């Protein structure tokens, strides 16, 4: 009886969620055929940032771990892509991608092992500090090209017996590969959310003490989530390196970690649509404030309106764009309690 009720509720919620998602995917698939190259590039960047934001959602939304150093894993993967690629020929996706993700995952496991010994404010600060350390590693050491960065000489491809299946050097192919990764990451996170692992993470977020009292080794779960989040951030980092063919230490800067946290809160924490929406809103805001057409010479001070917008959005819409309909409904309702 209970199971039947449960099944019906899943079907209903899925139906509500399915159609907007399907429309979004179809729109993204069709976009390169209708949009100009500048906009396609923008959408591409946004998709990569969406993957980055989704990876952080696993930590912040599902497990309640606010990490201010997530850019470290994005950057490590991006740099690994350039460092592991041979300087003469196109590397094979078959080994490059797993190697890059492996390095991002390893870094996340090691850094996570230290950071997860702390909680609350301390955790935020130590993740920031470790990310800054990674920034200095790539900024100061010669092997990484210093502040000038590094180039990717040839974009990776997937070939079997001499026939090229997937050439990421082809812009169209790369666009669809990126979209494919976004869909795959989204699906993976949706699967995790409904799995035992995901429920355990949610329990840790809600009440870690109770989870430990019940018998869950919460440190192991948190470390697993941290590592997985690092690997998924690595996917975004890899795509970033391939897209631009260039990496520099600024992708590891803490401004990047701040930006991705911002995307999460803009879109709405606790959902999967949130990070994707948040990435779009963030990119749009940045483009808007940097637009000389609108702001003229003042556009070079774009961080001022951005900072004010950040403060306003976080203050007024703490639950993000996703929760906007509910928030507006509550504001219009005559009930006296605060929203």
């Amino acid at each position, binding site marked *: 009886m*209970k*199971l039947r009720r*449960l099944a019906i509720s899943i079907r209903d919620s899925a139906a509500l969620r399915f159609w907007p998602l399907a429309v979004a995917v179809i729109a993204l698939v069709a976009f390169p055929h209708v949009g100009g190259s500048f906009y396609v590039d923008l959408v591409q960047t946004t998709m990569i940032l969406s993957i980055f934001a989704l990876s952080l959602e696993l930590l912040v939304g599902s497990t309640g771990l606010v990490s201010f150093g997530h850019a470290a894993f994005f950057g490590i993967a991006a740099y690994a892509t350039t460092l592991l690629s041979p300087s003469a020929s196109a590397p094979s996706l078959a080994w490059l991608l797993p190697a890059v993700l492996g390095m991002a995952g390893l870094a996340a496991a090691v850094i996570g092992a230290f950071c997860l010994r702390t909680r609350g404010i301390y955790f935020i600060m130590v993740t920031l500090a470790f990310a800054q350390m990674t920034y200095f590693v790539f900024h100061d050491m010669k092997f990484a090209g210093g502040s000038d960065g590094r180039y990717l000489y040839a974009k990776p491809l997937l070939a079997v017996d001499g026939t090229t299946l997937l050439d990421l050097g082809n812009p169209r192919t790369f666009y669809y590969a990126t979209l494919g990764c976004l869909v795959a990451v989204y699906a993976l996170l949706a*699967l*995790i959310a*409904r*799995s*035992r*692992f*995901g*429920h*355990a993470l949610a*329990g840790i977020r*809600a*009440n870690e*003490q*109770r*989870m*430990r*009292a*019940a*018998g*869950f*080794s*919460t440190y192991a*779960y948190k470390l*697993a989530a941290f590592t997985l989040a690092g690997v998924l951030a690595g996917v975004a980092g890899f795509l970033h390196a391939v897209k631009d063919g260039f990496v520099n230490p600024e992708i590891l800067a803490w401004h990047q970690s701040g930006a991705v946290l911002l995307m999460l809160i803009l879109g709405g924490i606790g959902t999967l649509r949130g990070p994707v929406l948040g990435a779009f809103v963030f990119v749009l805001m940045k483009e808007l404030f940097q637009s000389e057409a609108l702001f003229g010479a003042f556009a070079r001070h774009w961080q001022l309106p951005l900072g004010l917008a950040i403060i306003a959005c976080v203050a007024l819409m703490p639950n993000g764009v996703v929760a906007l309909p509910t928030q507006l409904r509550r504001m219009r309702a005559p009930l006296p309690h605060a929203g």
Partner: protein
Amino acid sequence: MPAEILLEAIDVSRRFGGLLAVDRASLTLARGEVHALIGTNGAGKSTLVNVLAGEIAATGGRVRLAGRDVTRWPQPRRARAGLGRSYQRTTIFPRATVFENCRLAAQAHYQRAFALWSDATRCRDSTRVAEQAIEHAALTAQAHRIAGTLSHGQKRQLEIAMCLATAPDVLLLDEPLAGMGPEETERMLALLASLAPGHAILLVEHDMDAVFRIADRITVMVNGAVMATGEPDAIRANADVQAAYLGEDADARETAASVT
């Protein structure tokens, strides 16, 4: 038949800097008995329970669970080995349903964290155990309500249900009757009495009437040390216990008697 000793504390001490919160406390818990732990505030009861549960480490002494030395084991490991606890402050998942609260607690024994493709709420093992725990705690009617909307007494029942969902042998209950009215207290006592035969229960409580009604044995703690252990009548008659704990009243009565 000799009682099966499920939990033993052997000379357990816990020091916080200069303060000796628990001073060589020893006690045993056998299956089928309700063992009450009483003492004034600051006597070290909660600290001792925390050490037994594994939430804080002992600075001296040993803890044995079903014969195994678990002194160095962290709390989750002890919980998986059959040690359950409830908290004085209600420690539930307020935004989930009562059913999901118990199911998640039950999942601790069926973690299968790598099975990412399966739906957790369809897990037959954890749902079965959760249903049983909810039934035992008499919360079946509330199973689909959001835990945060329950009354205080129902939340305390849920606290026990979540404890039961991990199928423990030993139950460490920290003031389960706190904040309850007479009806709810009766219900809780009936629940505890029904649990007693299959489990070993350590009950920390301030409600003396309830303690003397339900406890098979009582341990009294004062200033971190165990002052006396025994059956309820023996404890009631113990002069030291009367003086230290039940105490100021006895002094006052004596003085009044000598004056009249």
